[in-house]
């Protein structure tokens, strides 16, 4: 066991626990945000750098501070370690920087994005972001593509967390997509036109922190906050069958796996449950789904958007649906 202090709160955790998971056990505002780490996916984390913390004391044995900020999701605690999360201005500054980096090439097309309202990047930007972008260069763009008939890839929105590749490696037996090219030209791709098709491939959609991988079977493309999320289950031979049903009236618009307060799926679901059962009668309803405090929907940020802007964005969306080039997004809507 190791004793670790995070922003003044002390907890004892098993050896090998990461700083992030120790912080999650303590809970509260000191829990670092995480965009690439995913507790149920091995090897994830370390990449986005948004979970950086300051290790003010390495351990009781070696009390020296660590020279650089550390990725809390991949750094194991040591006995006597002292960590600063939100009590370190340096950490807050670094997180803000990472958010800015993640946004410079992001299309900011939230108003037309399926993920809006349940997007980790959107939530993060509200919490840590700066109001105005300083980036005036051209944004990186990719074509959006279908990877199979069930999943759509909007590479423009991807933040290269690698989670979907871990899903393919760890939950399916044949990975056909991966990260191609390098640097800021990197992209998630199958390289050749190929369907990502496998019993568990749909989980890529749930682990995606942004709207890069979305469910093509999401019916009527409703905004998430107009839907009524319910917990439901069915007897499934392939998976736990425990899901969230995104409903409107009597329709099941979309099915996803259940996530915890950190927006992580603990029990992955199979593609049959996700894509094939869009009828209320297929499911036993367990009750309403609780939405996390951090989310944009929960905080009603969307109501702040004035109607004129919303109308402009809807126009943009219509153009977009017609297959036209998107006009410049309106940063004031999202920043």
């Amino acid at each position, binding site marked *: 066991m190791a004793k670790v202090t995070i922003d003044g709160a002390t907890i004892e955790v098993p050896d090998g626990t990461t700083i992030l998971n120790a912080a999650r056990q303590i809970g509260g505002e000191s829990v670092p945000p995480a965009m690439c780490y995913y507790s149920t996916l091995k090897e994830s984390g370390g990449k986005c750098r948004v979970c950086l913390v300051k290790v003010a004391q390495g351990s009781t044995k070696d009390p020296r501070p660590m020279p650089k900020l550390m990725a809390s999701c991949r750094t194991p605690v040591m006995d006597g370690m002292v960590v600063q999360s939100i009590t370190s201005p340096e950490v807050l500054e670094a997180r803000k920087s990472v958010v800015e980096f993640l946004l410079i090439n992001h299309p900011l097309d939230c108003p037309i994005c399926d993920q809006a309202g349940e997007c980790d990047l959107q939530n993060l930007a509200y919490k840590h972001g700066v109001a105005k972008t300083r980036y005036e260069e051209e944004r990186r763009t990719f074509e959006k593509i279908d990877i199979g008939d069930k999943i759509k890839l909007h590479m423009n929105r991807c933040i290269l967390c690698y989670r979907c590749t871990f899903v393919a490696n760890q939950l399916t037996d044949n990975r056909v997509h*991966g990260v191609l090219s390098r640097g800021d030209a990197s992209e998630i791709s199958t*390289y050749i036109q190929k369907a990502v098709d496998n019993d568990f491939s749909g989980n890529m959609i749930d682990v995606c922190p942004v709207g890069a991988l979305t469910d093509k079977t999401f019916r009527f493309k409703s905004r998430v906050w107009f839907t009524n999320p319910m917990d439901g289950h069915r007897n499934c031979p392939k998976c736990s069958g425990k899901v969230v049903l995104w409903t409107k009236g009597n329709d099941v618009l979309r099915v996803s796996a259940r996530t915890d307060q950190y927006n992580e799926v603990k029990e992955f679901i199979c593609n049959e449950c996700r894509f094939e059962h869009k009828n209320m009668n297929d499911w036993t309803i367990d009750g309403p789904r609780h939405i996390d405090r951090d989310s944009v929907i929960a905080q009603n940020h969307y109501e702040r958007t004035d109607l004129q802007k919303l109308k402009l964005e809807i126009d943009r969306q219509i153009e977009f649906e017609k297959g036209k080039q998107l006009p410049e997004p309106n940063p004031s809507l999202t920043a």
Partner: protein
Amino acid sequence: MEEVKFSEGTLALVNKIIRRYPEGKQKSALLPTLHLAQAEFEGWLSVPVMDYVASLLKIKPIEVYEVASFYSMYNLKPVGKCLIEVCQTGPCWLRGSDDIVEHLEKKLKIKNGETTSDGMFTLKTVECLGSCGTAPMLQCGADYHENLTAEKVDRLVEKLRTSDKRSSYMR
């Protein structure tokens, strides 16, 4: 389409390379094998070629695509018979690499990144090749051409034009 297959000699070489690594670690042979493949199959890596390499090393095709697209020496599109790579990084620029690129563009009547219409030359600028002390320089296949001047470049281009060999890193 013709079946993609290494020559006997190359196949033997691939097997020899695989034996350099411990049992079960044959994926280690991927980079050297892709070099051989590029040399044998017209200077670039097509999907069938990459799939063939995947089958030889018993790995998934996507593992090959991921790697091939990461490293700058692998061409994922066809290139001219002679791929001319001019270094453009600071130390070479200090010694006039811009002039060399400009000269080549004029001489070959193509822009950086393009291939001549006869498929003879592809011109590409690259980053530091470890030849900064003999700058400006270019690489064509395995050969380094250093301390370049416009005249030297002219002579080289004429020589390459009449050579019947495709440029290759493996020679």
